[in-house]
């Protein structure tokens, strides 16, 4: 475990497959029962009144409003983009969402609608969601999105290579995609539901961070379970340790399965207590979600007015 505080050798661990394997397998283990308990304990924090108002606004500003369906059309994407800019049309004080997240062929449509609003366009790439394609195709997919104006690229790792222990291949792919991103920020999706063990989640986190990920992201939303509190806890701990070792901050994005404001607040508490206040901005923490936003808006209105409005008071986009 002492390796974590020593950043001097981090550059060398990717010199060879065996060096990388030794490093990743030398990371401290994660006790699953203990991690689950810690996540559950953080989930019992009681966030009320002013703290709740702050958390709801913060959560709204961290949403990557997402549509990743075969049935996506320019109209659907532009409607979503409009919603991201004005989540609550009735209340101008309501923050904007952080980004809209779409497939690479939809980036231009999203970009056109969002203009200079400050809401980013994130594009999934690299043969999302399975990642089963040749590297050239993944890079071309990335380039398509970047050329169309994507601010952020959400890539998937090759879980097959990871589970087979070909860590260096996973690393090289991330490095290549990062290069293809140019100025766009890179989010690296692990699909933790396929990695399954928390030890794997911790190793994938370090692998991606060493490879230059700007964000690490739990899931595609296409595999169950998607984001969970304990998985996010393990990733946050990795981000914290990476920061302590290198001084660099990496963002975290749980995605998929977070549907209620109550759950979103549990994640914010976790960020606050595990990595600290510094990460509590959309620059360093995001929610990949679609239905979450309306529950956040509903709770926000409830807090302001004292009563719940029906679902028809919030737009479906």
């Amino acid at each position, binding site marked *: *475990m*002492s390796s*974590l*505080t020593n950043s001097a050798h981090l550059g060398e661990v990717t010199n060879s497959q065996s060096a990388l394997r030794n490093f990743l397998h030398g990371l*401290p*283990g*994660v*006790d699953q*029962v*203990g*991690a689950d*308990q*810690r996540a559950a304990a953080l989930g*019992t*924090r*009681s*966030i*009320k*009144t*002013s*703290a*709740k108002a*702050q*958390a709801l606004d*913060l959560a709204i500003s961290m949403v990557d409003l997402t549509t990743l369906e075969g049935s996506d059309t320019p109209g659907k994407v532009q409607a979503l983009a409009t919603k991201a800019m004005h989540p609550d049309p009735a209340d101008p004080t309501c923050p904007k969402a952080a980004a809209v997240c779409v497939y690479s062929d939809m980036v231009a449509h999203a970009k056109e609608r969002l203009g200079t609003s*400050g809401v980013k366009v994130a594009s999934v790439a690299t043969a999302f969601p399975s990642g089963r394609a040749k590297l050239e195709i993944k890079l071309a997919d990335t380039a398509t999105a970047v050329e169309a104006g994507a601010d952020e690229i959400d890539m998937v790792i090759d879980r097959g290579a990871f589970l087979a222990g070909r860590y260096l291949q996973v690393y090289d792919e991330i490095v290549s995609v990062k290069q293809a991103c140019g100025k766009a*920020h890179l989010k690296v999706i692990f699909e933790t539901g396929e990695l399954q063990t928390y030890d794997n989640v911790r190793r994938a986190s370090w692998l991606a961070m060493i490879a230059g990920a*700007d964000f690490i992201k739990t899931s595609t939303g296409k595999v169950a379970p998607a984001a969970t509190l304990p998985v996010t806890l393990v990733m946050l*701990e990795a981000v914290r340790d990476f920061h302590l070792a290198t001084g*660099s*901050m*990496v963002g975290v994005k749980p995605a998929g399965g977070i549907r209620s404001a109550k759950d979103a607040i549990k994640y*914010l*508490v976790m960020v*606050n*207590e595990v990595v600290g*206040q*510094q*990460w*509590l*901005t*959309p*620059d*360093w923490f995001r929610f990949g979600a679609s239905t979450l936003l309306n529950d956040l808006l509903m709770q926000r209105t409830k807090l302001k007015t004292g009563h719940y409005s029906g679902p028809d008071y919030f737009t479906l986009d």
Partner: protein
Amino acid sequence: MTPSKDVARTAAAFEYAPAPESNSIATIRPHVGLFIDGDFRDGSGRAFKTINPATEEVLSEVSEATEVDIDRAVKAARAAQRRWARLTGAERSKFLFRLARIIQERAREIAVLESIDNGKPIKESRDVDIPTAAAHFFYYAGWADKLEYSGHGPTPRPIGVCAAVIPWNFPFLMLAWKIAPALATGNTVVLKPAETTPLTALLFAEICQQADLPPGVVNIVTGAAATGAELVSHPGIDKIAFTGSTVVGRQIAKSVAGTDKSVTLELGGKAANIVFDDAPIDQAIEGIINGIFFNQGHVCCAGSRLLVQESVFEEVIDRLKRRMAILRVGDPLDKNTDIGAINSKSQLDKITELTESGLAEGADSWSPECTLPAKGYWFAPTVFTGVSQANRIAREEIFGPVLSVLTFRTPKEAVEKANNTPYGLSAGVWTEKGSRSLWMASQLRAGVVWSNTFNRFDPASPFGGYKESGYGREGGRHGLTAYLAPTHFTTSGSR
């Protein structure tokens, strides 16, 4: 990476607004009496006050039981015991299930009262003490009609009238630990709660009434040390179950020598929490925190001695300090409080005295910055490094939020240091290597050894100590033994 967004946003502090549990759910009467033979009545001693340790406000005036009250309680328990033991196991189990369900139904009320009287955070009374107490009643309700199969002979018999003397750190949970197995096995009980925390025991008396428990099966007498001494030395007592300090345990053991009273003692501890270099580090840190700061460290099995493998000492201490820095100390009724109030002035004095001795003996102390409330009894979470086995803070039970850290080099040295204490209640072992956990567990002289966890309690698991930590086991099938007189009879095969 640097934040290369167009507009660099700075994060605002996320302060948790106060989230107090309502105290109005708990009824606190200005005067409470003893519970004898199914009724509340005044004691004949001098009433004493119980206070809220977080505010120093007087909560209630509590009756003191003297010799005559105790005699009455023991006689009521004796009269009830014959009828209670004659019930079928299934009948007794019905009462226990009923008590368990009422505890669940009134859990919030009991939890609030416990936090007010004891000072412990509501999240602990709500999530640990009261649910675990209900679980004990459920567990032993299940045994009541199966005692013939518990390994105590074909017709195990109750011992009779039990005196239970319980401490202030887990008032309601310790009550459950004593009363549930005693009642399941056909015994009746006279229980004395600690003088600083009598209120939930008296609430339990109301629950007994609500459950239509026959009068005399549970009696509760309140008072301080003199009342306890009077109770355990009463000739009508058949069995004593005591949880508390080793000093008092020793007095009890002496006082019953030469009588036919049976005794179980659950006493102090100075548990080693042992962290190897291959430990799951983040969970180990949580385990250290939970081991010593759970319930303000007022835990007999607290992991008060941290033994860290020397190769990871600095890393563990750095991480521990970062974790300690976000502990929330304050109002026990706030749902976000991690560390509540010290239970009494005298306990606070004891903690203060021992930590001063640690400093005087040359150990280094560290506490996170935290503002302690002006009123009430408070002690900031503290860690001592540079501690050696010879220091008082490594040997004596502090019973507060104070951790002493020592180092070791090899598993053998860890075992030697862990066992080098007059106590032997619990221990924790943190390693990802299963074979090492098992080997350590076989070497440690402690009643409970936790592997990659700490301070976990389950009614099905026996709990108790070696050496000065006491004798007898509570919980599980083993917990029945203390309340049963084994019978062995043989019949001739030819008849």
